[in-house]
Each structure stands twice: as C-alpha cells, then as structure tokens.
C-alpha cells in the first residue's frame, strides 16, 4: 500500500504545490517540516479544518487526504491528534448524529433504498459488514424500529420495517437536489426550521425563485428570516410569488430544555432559563404538536398506508400553556430502554421492563430493547440521571474531564484510542500515554474509556464471532471490517485523493489531463448554472464568514451585532485595487455568469495575489452573511451566494463556494 501511495503522490512535489496552489515552495516546506516534526512517540499534531475543504467539488477527497496524513504520521487515536472539523453551528454534530442527513438513520446505519432493500433481511444483509463492530448493526436497527413503532413492531412484521420510508435513489435528497426540485415545481411543500436557504443556498437567486415556486412553506425561526420573507423580496412583485408562507415563531437554546453536541461528540444539556415570549415555542413543541395533530387526523383510518402514523410511539407528555414536551423522555428514548424483563446469558436478571439501558452492549435484535440512537446509549443510564447535565470538576489526573457532559460513544473522549498504545499494549511514550494493557488485571486501563474490547489482550488473534468479529488484539480501528486504518477506500471518486481544479479555475490542471472531478454533480438548470472562464472572469473569488455574524441571518436581527460592521463588503488587495482604480470604501460590482452583487470594497494587505502556473492572479474575498431582511441599514445587503454555481461533491453534493471566478468593476 505504501508503494502505491508513493507512486500516486510522486507527482505532488513542492515545486508542483507552488505552481498549482500559489504557496511559495519555502513556505510549504516550512509548514510540512513543522507538522512532521510535531508527530512521533512524544508528540502529536492535530488538524483543524473548516468549510474551505468541504465546499468543493473535491471536498470529501480533500478531507480524506488529511485523515491519511494523520494516519501515516500516527496522529489518530492519541491525545492531541485527530482531524477536527470546526463546525459552523453549535449543534452540527448533534444534527448529523440524529439523522438529518438523508442517507443515514440516527446513529449512522444507512437509510434504506427502495430497490436493493425491500425487506428487513435484504437491508440488514446488504448493509451489515462481515467484521468489525458494525456486525452489531441488526441490534441497532431493530432497536430503532422498536423505539419508533413500539408494540406495533413485532418479529412477525419485521419490526415494522415496511413503515420506514425508503430512498428512491442514492443521491436524491440533498439540499441542492430539493432546491432544484422546488425550482422545477416537483417539490410542492417545505418545512424550514433553523435554516435560511434564501441566503445560504448556492445559486441563491435561483433558490429564492425555487422557494417562490412552492405551494406552501412553513418557516419556524426566531425572526422573520429572508426565507420567510421571500415572497416580498425587494424588486419582486409579491403577486408573482406562488408560495403561501406560514411563519411560526421559534425559541433559542436559552428558552428551552435540550442538548447540543459539539465537534468532540460531547453532548451538553441546557435547561430553560426563561419562557419564550409571546406565541414562540420550542421546535420540539412544534414537532410534537404536528405529530399529535397528524395522529388525530388519521384516527379511525383502516388504510394500511396510515399505520406508520397511527402506530408511531408519540408520548412526550406535553405540559403547560404552550404544551412543551418533557425533553427527558426524548433523551430516554434516544438512550434506549427495555421492552420486557431482560436476563443475561446465564439467566441472572439484568433489567426490568422499561428501564433505561446502561450500555449499547446490552442492545438486542429480538425486539426486547428499544433505542432511538445507539451511539448515545449511556447518556441516561437510569431514571432521572442525565449524564449530559453533569458539570463535575475533573478528578485528579483526569485531564479529559469525564465528569463534564457526555461524549458518545460510552463517554469516550478520544476514539480509536487503542492506537495510543503500541502493538504490545504499552503507551508509545510516557508523555502521550492514554490507555494501556494491564497484564495482571487482564484488561485495558488508563485515562479514557478504552475504544476496544475491554479484555482483548494485545496478542489475541482475530475474533471469529461476537461483537468484535474480525478484530485482533492489535487492530485499533474496530469499526472497519478488518480492524485496520484504511488508505485505500471504496468511495465513488477513487481509492486515493487526487487533485482536480475547481470548475471555474484560472489555470489548467497541471497534475493530469482531467481538469475537474469527473464525478462531480452539475445540476441541469440551463442558463442559471453557466460557468465562467478566466478571460471574462479573471479574479479568484472565495466566500467566508465573519466571527461577528451568524451564518445566514440571526445576527442581522440583533442591533448590537449588526452594529459591528458597516455593511456588506468585498476584501481586495492593494495591487488589484490600484489597477482598477478602487479606493478603500468605494462601491464595486462583483459579477459571475450567475449574478451580480454590489458591495463596498475593503482594500487590505491581508489579501495577496497568487502566482499560479507562473501567472499572477488576484483574489477577492466576500463574506456571505447579508440579505434583504435585517434590523438596521448595516444588516441589509446583497446576497453573496447569488454568485455561486450549482455544483456538488460526488459524495456529499456540497457546493463549490470557496474557489470560483468573478469579475470586479468600480461603480461609477
């Protein structure tokens, strides 16, 4: 494998990096030297990245390249190592864990497909690997079905697997797909919670027309967002808008009970500090209300197709004038509980019926356990005990703070931590020790919850069955069928990451004849998705966020936050500004084939030109917070994402908004 890697990357010389990326060779070598010298038995390096990598037609492979580097440098599963995704919102991790992505069920089993997965047996056979910890997949999925459909999910009916919606095809439900679906009037209705697609969608002008093409839209948010106001966007005749908008006032974290899971997989519970004002309610109250009303509408129906709604377990005890549900009941459901008395394999009593589960090791695939999200099992290990609410001071030596909140899985703070010990089970160094094999006690011990079979010795052979099937005593990567870290991966755009230019680029691809990722998604919406060429659009455009503003709009409704910037702006380097006769503070038009926006030029030395393929290219940086809704003048401005094309990474379908081409003109 190492030789294959060497062959693949022999073309990627420091000189090539300089020509392709515009990073001077010396600087690149300096960074590489620091990074490599910070990796070894005594040291670890971490990589933090943000959306610059995701938002690319080559996004998954770029991030995988980082994982491979960390793996080869020994920076995975060790304190201070890892690849850390800096999230744009506080609860991105939590939302992902709970199945907001269209292709995953809560806890990451695959969302079933219509074609290949008609029955539970087909689904489990095709999605459960033959080795590694995922061999337990049937326990996770059956327990999930029991959590959702309770007594109606029986062995006889495949635990109500029929009720589960199936995906039509593998790529059909990403953000860009459904926005294009709205544009083409295939999608008729939309419930939008805590998101502002009128501003945060790529090709946002098209996206706003898509929203206006809907028949109905429900927006649940703290303020009347640009999305909620899309029918009265400045310059648009409200009569031309088809959509009927229902605006439901929502509540932020301080006004409701619930949890937020951060990028280190740690869930922290928050308790309502104040009541939401006026008619505002928590999103949980809204969802529970919708479910309750749906059940009432379907009551008495004999139709088979209505069973998923009628049989849904939906008892969250809404209370008070606003019918706020009891969120600890939601937590208990996520944690999992027994549906009958359970005994262990020797027949000794383990749980009484209805008790919360202490560990996902107790989950079963026979319907005797219900669990809404197996990775969170242990967060509510007994009635009234909410581990995410803990704020304990760390005990002596516990620098990972295991008494604060709850990190999935099993309150483990560093995953793959078997890799923190050498093959014989000893720490790689005293300084970086985390867990190790205690030969006398015959178990793994140390400063974290072992991410390994707790009693599997370092010299243990591959397990032939059981929950760790296929894993030997030296295999740290227990979620993989072979227990090993994986350089050669089976994802759609190739086993190894490869460089492709963005779809709009000032240069040809110097590394191969293939200019762009051949598997990237190009949305077919005709002229709305035209791409620019460097002769007409000579500048590189990148988009980003500012610390002071929330991604797509919350901050623009708060005067104290809106006060921090004068208004929308584009950052331009002094050399480019001089060439175009632009002074700091002048209005400029930034244009791509998709749209034009007017913003103020902020001329700064922080933005420097690149030498790419031996040619000087200027860069323009534009934050993307602004929109037409906002509490004061400085909060309103053109929508940066109007400039961005409708393209997608082949795996995630995330747009390419960090590297595109534009033209810039001084306003007369």
């Amino acid at each position, binding site marked *: 494998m190492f030789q294959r890697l060497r062959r693949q990357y022999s073309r990627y010389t420091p000189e090539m990096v300089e020509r392709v990326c515009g990073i001077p060779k010396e600087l690149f070598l300096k960074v590489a030297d620091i990074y490599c010298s910070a990796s070894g038995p005594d040291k670890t390096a971490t990589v933090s990245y943000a959306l610059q990598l995701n938002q690319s037609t080559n996004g998954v492979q770029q991030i995988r390249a980082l994982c491979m580097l960390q793996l080869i440098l020994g920076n995975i599963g060790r304190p201070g190592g890892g690849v850390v995704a800096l999230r744009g919102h506080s609860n991105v991790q939590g939302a992902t864990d709970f199945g907001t992505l269209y292709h995953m069920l809560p806890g990451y089993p695959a969302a079933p497909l219509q074609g290949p997965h008609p029955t539970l047996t087909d689904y489990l056979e095709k999605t459960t690997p033959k080795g590694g910890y995922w061999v337990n997949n049937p326990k996770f999925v059956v327990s999930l079905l029991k959590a959702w459909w309770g007594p109606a999910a029986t062995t006889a009916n495949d635990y109500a697997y029929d009720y589960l919606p199936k995906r039509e095809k593998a790529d059909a439900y990403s953000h860009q797909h459904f926005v294009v679906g709205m544009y083409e009037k295939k999608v008729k209705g939309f419930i939008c919670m805590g998101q502002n697609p009128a501003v945060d969608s790529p090709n946002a002008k098209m996206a706003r027309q898509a929203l206006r093409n809907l028949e109905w839209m429900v927006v649940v948010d703290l303020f009347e967002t640009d999305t909620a106001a899309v029918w009265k966007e400045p310059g648009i005749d409200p009569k031309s808008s088809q959509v009927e908008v229902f605006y439901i006032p929502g509540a932020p974290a301080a006004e409701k009970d619930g949890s937020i899971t951060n990028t280190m997989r740690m869930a922290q519970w928050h308790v309502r500090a104040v009541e939401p004002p006026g008619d505002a309610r928590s999103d949980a109250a809204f969802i529970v209300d919708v479910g309750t009303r749906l059940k009432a509408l379907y009551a008495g129906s004999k139709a088979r197709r209505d069973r998923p709604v009628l049989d849904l377990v939906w008892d969250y005890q809404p209370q008070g004038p606003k019918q706020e549900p009891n969120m600890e009941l939601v937590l208990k459901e996520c944690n999992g509980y027994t549906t009958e008395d359970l005994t262990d394999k020797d027949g000794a009593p383990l749980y009484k019926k209805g008790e919360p589960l202490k560990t996902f090791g107790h989950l079963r695939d026979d319907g005797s356990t219900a669990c809404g999200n197996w990775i969170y099992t242990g967060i509510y290990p007994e009635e009234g005990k909410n581990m995410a609410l803990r704020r304990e001071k760390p005990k002596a030596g516990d620098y990972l703070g295991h008494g604060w909140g709850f990190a999935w899985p099993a309150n483990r703070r560093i995953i793959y931590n078997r890799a923190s010990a050498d093959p014989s089970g000893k720490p790689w160094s005293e300084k970086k020790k985390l867990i190790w094999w205690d030969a006398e006690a015959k178990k793994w011990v140390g400063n974290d919850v072992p991410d390994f079979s707790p009693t599997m010795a370092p010299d243990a052979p591959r397990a032939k069955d059981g929950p760790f099937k296929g894993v030997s005593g030296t295999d740290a990567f227990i979620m993989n069928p072979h227990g090993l870290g994986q350089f050669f991966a089976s994802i759609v755009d190739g086993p190894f990451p490869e460089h492709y230019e963005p779809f709009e680029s000032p240069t040809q691809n110097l590394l191969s004849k293939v200019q762009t990722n051949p598997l990237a998604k190009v949305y077919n919406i005709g002229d709305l998705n035209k791409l620019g060429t460097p002769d007409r659009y000579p500048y590189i455009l990148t988009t980003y966020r500012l610390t002071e503003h929330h991604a797509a709009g919350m901050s623009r409704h708060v*005067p104290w936050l809106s*006060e921090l*910037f*004068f208004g929308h702006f584009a950052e331009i380097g002094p050399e480019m500004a001089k060439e175009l006769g632009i002074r700091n503070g002048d209005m400029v038009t930034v244009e791509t084939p998709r749209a034009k926006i007017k913003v103020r030029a*902020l001329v*700064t*030395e922080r933005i420097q030109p690149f030498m790419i393929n031996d040619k000087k290219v200027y860069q323009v940086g534009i934050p993307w917070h602004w929109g037409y809704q906002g509490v004061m*003048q400085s909060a309103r401005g053109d929508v940066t994402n109007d400039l961005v094309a409708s393209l997608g990474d082949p795996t995630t379908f995330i747009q390419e908004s960090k590297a595109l081409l534009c033209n810039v003109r001084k306003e007369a």
Partner: protein
Amino acid sequence: MARTLAMFTDVSLCIGCRACQVACKQWNQLAPEEPEWTGTYQNHHHFTDKSYRLVRFFEETDDKGQIKQWHMMSDVCKHCAQAGCLEACPTGAIYRTEYGTVNINQDICNGCRYCVSACPFGVVAFNHDTGTATKCTFCNDRIHNGLGPACAKACPTQSIKFGFRDELAVVARKRVDELKTLGYKDARLYGEDTAGDLGGLNAFFLLLGKPSIYGLPEKPKLPQKNVVVDSLLSIGSALIVGLGALVAFRGRGGQGDA
C-alpha cells in the same frame, strides 16, 4: 481603601471577535448606533457615549508592503491612578471608588466637558441626551457584587482578565517573559508600572510592539502637566511679541521723525 481592582488586556490572545463590545452594551443597556465606514473591521472610529469598549484593528506591514501582523486590541477606560478627567472635573462628579476605579456620578455632572478634553486617551464621551459625560465603570454594579466586568466575562480567549491589580501584574510580567521566549521580542506591558506614567493604569495592557501601533500615546500625560511649561511658553511668547512691537514702533517712530 479596598485592594485595587484592575483589568489586564493581553493583545496576544485577542482574536478580534468583539464579544466584549457586545457584552458591554448589553449589560450596560447602551443603545445601538449605526456603524461608520472605518476602512477596517473596527467599529466605531472612537469611544462614544454608547460604546465604552472598542476593539481596534491595525494591519502592520513590512517594507515590501506584505502583511506582517494583524493586530487586534480591546481598548477601554484606563481608570488611571492620576486621572485627568477626575482632576479636571469642577463639580466633583468624577470620583474614585474604594477599588481604585474612576466613575462619573451622573446626578452631579453638569456637562461642562472639561473631562472630555482632559482624558489623554480620548475615553470620556458626552451624551447629548442626558447632557452628561459617560464612560466605562468596570461595570460598577457587577464588581460591587463580586462579579467581574461583562467584557471580561464574555471574552472567549481570556484576553481580558480582571482581578486584584497586584496579582494581575505578576501574571502579566510572566506572560511577557513567556512571549519573549517564543520570539515576540517587542512584547511589553503598557501602564502596569505604578511608578510610571499617570501613576500606572488600572486597565493595563500587554502589547506586541510599540504603543503607537495600537494608537496609544507613547508617554501619556495629564494635560494639567502642561500648565507650567505652557504658561512659561505663553509668557515667553508674550515677551517676544512685546519686544517685537517695541522694535517695530521704534522703527516707525524713526520714520516719523524723518
């Protein structure tokens, strides 16, 4: 007098997020203002009667015009040991608290604005609605109830630290040594020395370069200190003008005689 309380702002830790500015406005219930175009991320240009905290942004470039460092510094009232505003106040509205902070009693202030021009740092601002001078109080209500000022509480990097002055000074000196070992050879403290300018500042700073980079006077002094020199200069000027006049008149007299 109780032990002196102080604020230590370490600019090497400031990320320019401006949470301090917003926390200040929120706690003190200061009205939002329309921002101004400053040509940088900074807003506003200056302290105002509604902005007691101000993060200043400076871009330092080298000889070739390449960016060397993007400086951010959260600026605030210094609560000087020798406070120009306090000395200039004719009504006694400006007073020193038992913690060493300097406050303006809004009920007594007559709006004369002597303090505005007496502040060497341009901190004190005039509120046209109330007709009084206003500025940071270190969140007087909070510190008298055992809480630190709102800005220090909100600072996510602990760039703003609040506590007893003598303890903070130790922390600050240690931090300068630490930064020097890391290669920041121009790191220095500003206003920490009680034997230095203005008897020391109760909001003192760790800077990564000369004070002028951050828009701070190299040697702040009270306008009152100028009185003797200025008076002598005035007397000198008067003498020169008088002598000149004598010479001129004598010359004219001579012509008259001719």
